[in-house]
């Protein structure tokens, strides 16, 4: 049985260096979903959080309404460990890195948008990384169709939702977070779709960096 694919990425865009105070900042927009990210560091670290051979990374997610809850805490963990794997934090031992993510609007694929905004902000902050990463969300709807970059409405209608972080070097899965149940085949298809879609986003990263430094080079 061949599964129908609906591999469309909504229009997306990003602006770097949007805020004056943080050492690196970026906004990332996917369709109507929009996230603002700010990075501080490397800077002085609290003794209680100090790690002797690498930088301590803290990720904070700020919801738009109310206080962060357990769900945000779990997502912070996912994003932090993804960033940690990409960052060469051993180059800044005993220092602190702080990444703050602010939701501006949620219209689906929020976790993916967090990851993309985080990556752009880390690039803007000029932190050394071993690879870049991007986030892709796939929704499987009741007909078994795979939809990339779903909107809130599409997320609601789906029976499973999978978000992956893909690395830029080997296009492997760095992070995975899923909701709903799905078959092994669907999983592998979603991974393959995400890997393909990641090409677009990595190309976008490259283009935006090229554009940014076009006057210098």
């Amino acid at each position, binding site marked *: 049985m061949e599964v129908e694919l609906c591999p469309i990425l909504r229009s997306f865009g990003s602006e770097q260096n949007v805020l004056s105070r943080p050492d690196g900042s970026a906004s990332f927009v996917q369709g109507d979903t929009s996230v603002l990210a700010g990075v501080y560091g490397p800077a002085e670290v609290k003794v209680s959080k100090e790690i002797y051979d690498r930088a301590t990374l803290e990720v904070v997610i700020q919801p738009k309404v109310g*206080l*962060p*809850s*357990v769900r945000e*805490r779990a997502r912070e963990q996912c994003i932090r460990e993804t960033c940690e794997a990409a960052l060469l934090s051993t180059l800044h031992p005993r220092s602190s890195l702080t990444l703050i993510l602010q939701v501006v609007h949620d219209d689906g694929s929020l976790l993916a948008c967090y990851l993309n905004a985080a990556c752009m902000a880390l690039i803007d902050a000029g932190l050394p990384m071993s690879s870049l990463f991007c986030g892709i969300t796939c929704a499987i709807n009741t007909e078994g169709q795979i939809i990339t970059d779903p909107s809130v409405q599409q997320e609601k209608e789906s029976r499973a939702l999978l978000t992956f972080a893909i690395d830029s070097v080997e296009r492997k899965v760095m992070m995975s977070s899923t909701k709903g149940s799905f078959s092994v085949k669907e999983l592998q298809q979603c991974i393959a779709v995400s890997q393909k879609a990641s090409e677009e986003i990595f190309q976008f990263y490259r283009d935006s960096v090229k554009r940014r430094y076009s006057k210098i080079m």
Partner: protein
Amino acid sequence: MPTDTKRLRGPEESQSPMLFLPPDAQILKASSRDGSRGHADVRPIFARCGLVSQAKGSAYLEAGNTKIICSVYGPRETERKDETDMKSGRLLCDFRLAPFSCLKRGAWIQGNEERDLSVALIESLQPGVCLHRYPRSQIEINVVVLENDGSILAHAVTCASIALADAGIEMYDVVLGCTLRQDGDTCLVDPTFAEESGNWLGGYGENQGRVTVALLPNFNQVSGLHADGEMREDTLTEAVRTCMDGCHKLYPVVQHALLRAVKRKAPPSVK
């Protein structure tokens, strides 16, 4: 709007099904103990050391349905540097009732009852521990009550003292605990939860109360004494004596458990 953002929350309000019982039904039947055990008998207890692999010392104690687990960490450097008395160590206690341990579900956030129990536990254990041997350090005692079927303070004291011994903390003596429930002229040693709350809160009789004693068995010294309710002085004195007898009955079990733990840690050399 103080809300617990660090836990998953359910509905704002929920009630225990026990509140919806038809009025004539009773859940807590004050048992008469007929045939099962005498009024002055403690429940059979089961004690064992060293189950928490990560802890310096630990103990698990079961008395009837009351189930208590305790682990001990330390001695380690004290966190409170401003403490005036640095010449001797400090005992710290984190006492928790698991949310499912009581008939009514408890909250995760430590309540007054738990704080009170931890203060009482420290007061009872302190005389038994050679704290002067641990200057500038703290010893952490963590107690979790998995099931509360009465006499938790007394059993927590016993359990914690076994755990302390298992952790190799120097002690003058183990500390044993025993609770008694006074109901008019009868007294029930080591009461279950039903006996503990029983008709005391419902009735208006005289001489109602609960006494918990912590004892250092080898010195025959009382290291902790807590009583509430309403009792005559002579009843109280008698109750303390009965509790002390109850404590002595536990001693062989505790001894046995510790002996085992020691044997396991240092097996007798085969010559």
